[in-house]
């Protein structure tokens, strides 16, 4: 913007003598607001974002905060320059004179492309890196849970424990033990999601999709929801998932007809 405007000022209509340096003003407003905005994002994020119960969930929340902090100056750039133009350069009546044409200097698109391109590439590389970290986890004592969706309920099998909880309103997971969900569907497309664990994958009929290995770290009660429209009672496809101590889990799995 800077070069462009200085060039425009040298146009045919000379600006009034005490014309302020609009560009400098707008940039100062933008920088100040951006700093405030970023600070607000960092402070408020912890209140707005949902609590998490796994490493994966923490990473997700960090990524959300990072993206928002990066977005603040980008959005404010548009907001500030737009508001500034509409307030300061406003004319009341139908203008009888035209404005002085502005042309971007050849360097402006290149600079602009450099900045947006760098931001964009950073996001792609960061996203791939974070995603790789999330999905590459492996462990030796993974608890495998087979999830079967059907209209409109979830069934959970624990093949390693020989237990199954078809139709139950509640399942349990042991704390600090890696777990992997193998998700499939009996009828139509469903979406299996536990927000606090950062788990979300579609349940496809005739296919088994595997989630990343995730380790619940906080004892508590969370919800399984369906996130793909699956018909009449889609919005009732909720279930409780409790993350409990290993001892509690063992007694629960026994009560479900399995063995620890």
């Amino acid at each position: 913007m800077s070069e462009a405007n200085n060039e425009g000022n040298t146009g045919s209509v000379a600006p009034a003598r005490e014309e302020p340096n609009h560009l400098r003003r707008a940039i100062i407003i933008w920088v100040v607001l951006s700093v405030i905005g970023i600070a607000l994002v960092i402070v408020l994020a912890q209140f707005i974002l949902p609590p998490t119960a796994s490493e994966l969930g923490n990473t997700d929340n960090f990524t959300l905060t990072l993206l928002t902090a990066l977005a603040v100056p980008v959005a404010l750039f548009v907001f500030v320059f737009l508001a500034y133009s509409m307030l300061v350069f406003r004319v009341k009546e139908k203008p009888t004179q035209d404005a002085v044409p502005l042309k971007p200097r050849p360097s402006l698109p290149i600079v602009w492309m450099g900045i947006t391109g760098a931001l964009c590439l950073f996001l792609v590389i960061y996203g791939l890196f974070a995603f790789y970290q999330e999905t590459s986890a492996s462990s030796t004592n993974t608890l495998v849970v087979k999830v079967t969706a059907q209209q409109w309920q979830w069934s959970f099998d624990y093949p390693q424990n020989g237990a199954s909880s078809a139709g139950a309103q509640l399942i349990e997971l042991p704390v600090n033990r890696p777990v992997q969900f193998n998700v499939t569907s009996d009828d139509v497309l469903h979406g299996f999601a536990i927000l606090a664990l950062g788990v979300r994958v579609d349940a496809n009929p005739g296919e088994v999709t595997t989630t990343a290995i995730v380790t619940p770290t906080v004892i508590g009660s969370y919800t399984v929801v369906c996130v793909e429209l699956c018909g009449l009672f889609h919005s009732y496809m909720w279930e409780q998932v409790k993350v409990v101590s290993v001892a509690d889990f063992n007694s629960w799995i026994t009560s479900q007809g399995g063995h620890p």
Partner: protein
Amino acid sequence: MSQVSITAEVKRPNLTRRLFPSVVSGIVLGIIGAVVFGVIVNAITQGNNQDATVVSVYIGWVLLFFVGIGAFNGVWRWGFARGEATPAEELELAGKDQGLWRYFRYTTDHKVVGMQYLATTLIFFFLGSMGAFMIRLEQSRPGAIFFTPSTYNTIVGMHGILMIVASIIMVSGPFGNFVLPIMIGARDMAFPRLNALSYWLLFSAVPIFFSTLFFGGFPTGWTGYAPLSVQELTPGMDAYCVTIIIFAASTTLAALNIVTTVMVLRTRGMTWGRLPIFVWGVVLSVLLGLSAFPTFLISQVMVLMDRVFQTSFFIAAYGGNNWLYEHLFWFMGHPEVYVIALPSMAVAAEVTAVFSRKTVFGRRMLIGSLVTITILSALVWGHHLYTSGSATALDAPYMLDTELISIPTGFFFLALIGTFWRGKVWVTVPLLFVGGMLVNFVIGGITGIYLADLPTDEILHGGMFVTAHFHFTLVGSMVFGFFAGFYYWFPKMLGKRLNPRLGALHFWLFMIGFNGTFLSLFYAGLIGEPRWSANVAPPFATANLIASLFAILIAASVFVTVYNVVITLKSGELAEANEWGGKTLEWTVPTPVPLENFEHLPVVTSTPYDYGTPEPLAEDAEGALKPAPLLPQPES
């Protein structure tokens, strides 16, 4: 509308001749066709195949509707039965007749088709918004209180389809038909009859779509995901499929027509370099639509085959796969977002230049960015399938491509902000809407990054965050862009001046209500509310209640607009021929625009944004030709 020239109107002796052919006879014959086809197919299938009967009813309706409205009259009389005809009758056969009834006939005049599209768009928006308010009503309280889940799902689906269809046609239909040919200095579209066909195809799909209400609705939402759509037993789903098939055909024909018109009917001197940005936007949009909509058509043909003939494209138990549907759907579904976006963005650029009295900042840079968006957006659809479990290896390229789009979009913002900067910014209703569009587009665009980025999509996919995001892009940005164009071109199209105070009231109610509603839904999405919730769970109740309260402001804005349009049509002031001081060609012709637009086709000697330079845009063919005043700009 009241000042139409009636010079070429054919005298019709009685009511029968007035109604036949017209939309009235079309509907009468269409209903007869529907009944006949339904009875025949029902007899053949011995009543065992409900879906086959319903689909044949729809086919019968469409075929006989076109016979009844006189789509084949001109062709038939000219080809086989041409007798003595007065010039007025010739004009009528060409679909160029005048008078109020031309709006209800198979009229080929591009201005009539544009008006038909405008009325249809506004009615769709009105009905779709009523669906939206019902959704907000249901979601204002936890639990399913006002509607049963089945009704709720149908309302969501109908709201979605109405709004998506309306926003696909909202700019390319009304303004692409009415304004675009005048802008390039043409007397009509390249294929006027095809133009009428594409509008009336859309019209014929409307009763089919609403018939779903009598057949039990459809549970799939606007996306119509298989196998849910195949499994659904009520024939309401067939209505969805046939509607989409007809709509896709209509849009494809319209796209073909617009591309051809711009390629061959530009007037002398209207080089591609001087083409207004609006024309660029529409052409790029319909080019993208040409690749997208046939896929949508095919996907629905396949769903219908699964439903009617028990094939199994999408049934896993018999070797089908639901990923096939998802890919076909989103191969249409994501480019479609840009089909909606590109013309609206172009309207914004057009309006900004006029109301800043300044040439578009970096015009070629802007056009280049629109072209780049068109190319990139054809290959981003896979980001809708990150969590589907299909083709994980392609996640990274899809993500790269999606995020690359932010670069040309950034140039769009640079161009518009640069046009505003140091302009003579005349803040009128169209410009207010451009301002609102830019603000909302920033929010919509940035939240798109969250969904395009793999780690964050993993927690946001299928949630309310997605709903809020695409409402910010489609409604907050593109519908605002449409309203900018609506207030900008209304004086040219209808010859009346919309009340600017009511226009500003519309804007502020809409802007505040919209942001309140969907910022709340962003929050609901962040804390985990899934989409399509007939039954809002208690943790999300507050956010949803706030959203619903803000939606009251949007409802108020809808009724303000309706009131404004009605009183303006009844008793508005007459508008000037060049109401705003625009320099594109449509502002050089009188209002109301005469039948063939120009007495003499203009010769164009410069770009239409030469504010601050004294040369006029166009001369009559008789006028002296001046050399092009604008040299190519030294940029990029």
